């Protein structure tokens, strides 16, 4: 169902197929933890976690492929002297 729904090309019983299946199972374990109710969360608007197009990726693959934004260090607003800036001194 997953391969059809997300248009995956790997075929059944291949090495990649089993690798992806393990990732999918690990994802489902994560979803249970992420969806577990927490007392300080407002329930009816809470985020929901589950199967999506990234569920057959390992967290490492996901991080390497999609989480490639570098953190930036900027100063607290409105303290512009300490490095929060409006242009010039960025270099």
């Amino acid at each position: 169902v997953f391969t059809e729904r997300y248009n995956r090309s790997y075929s059944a019983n291949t090495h990649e197929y089993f690798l992806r299946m393990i990732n999918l199972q690990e994802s489902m374990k994560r979803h249970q933890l992420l969806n577990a109710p927490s007392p300080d969360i407002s329930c009816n608007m809470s985020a929901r976690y589950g199967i999506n197009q990234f569920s057959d990726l390992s967290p490492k693959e996901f991080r390497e492929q999609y989480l490639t934004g570098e953190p930036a260090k900027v100063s607290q607003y409105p303290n512009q002297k300490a490095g929060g800036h409006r242009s010039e001194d960025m270099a």
Partner: protein
Amino acid sequence: LPAKFDWRDKNVVTEVQNQESCGGCWAFSVVGAVESVYAKGGHPLEQLSVQQVIDCSYQNQGCKGGSTIRALNWLMKTQEKLVHESEYPFKAATGVCHLFPLTHFGVSVKDFAAFDFSGLEEVMMQKLVEWGPLVVTVDAMSWQDYLGGVIQHHCSSHQANHAVLIIGYDTTGEVPYWIVRNSWGTSWGNQGYVYIKMGENICGIADAVAAVFV
């Protein structure tokens, strides 16, 4: 400030994009902000070239990653004009930088502002309304599994690894939240958007916030 604000209502936000297998979130967020601020100034809403930023912003690593602040600094320093997406289309891979004649149409960045608004998300709301959509960096590790709703947990601050664009907020419900445009296509999250609880720097959304001026 209005209790609810969404730049999409002003028709200044382009469609959700899909970065596919290219790690160019930093370019998608920056170009999204330029598109919106240009339209906010009374110009037509036009999709500008993300590929141009990926290929030409030499201090970044193209589809292997980059920094929103470095990209903004490059845009401002070089006065590089962002051309239409159709003239320099996205191909999900880093390529050779294409140059255009000086007379060619394009949108350049005059200036930008970048600040840490942690603990000051109410001020950040004002700046969103005043300046336009905001480029932010976030910890998006748990977004691998996100389906919808308001993220209130499972996200760290000070560990940014992804760049997105805040285009609005909603404080009318039980949980006030930021409306954030991602670049993973419309099948992810809430039609490509993610909602993040306001006021607690969830996912580090207020750690590094940038606005552009065109």
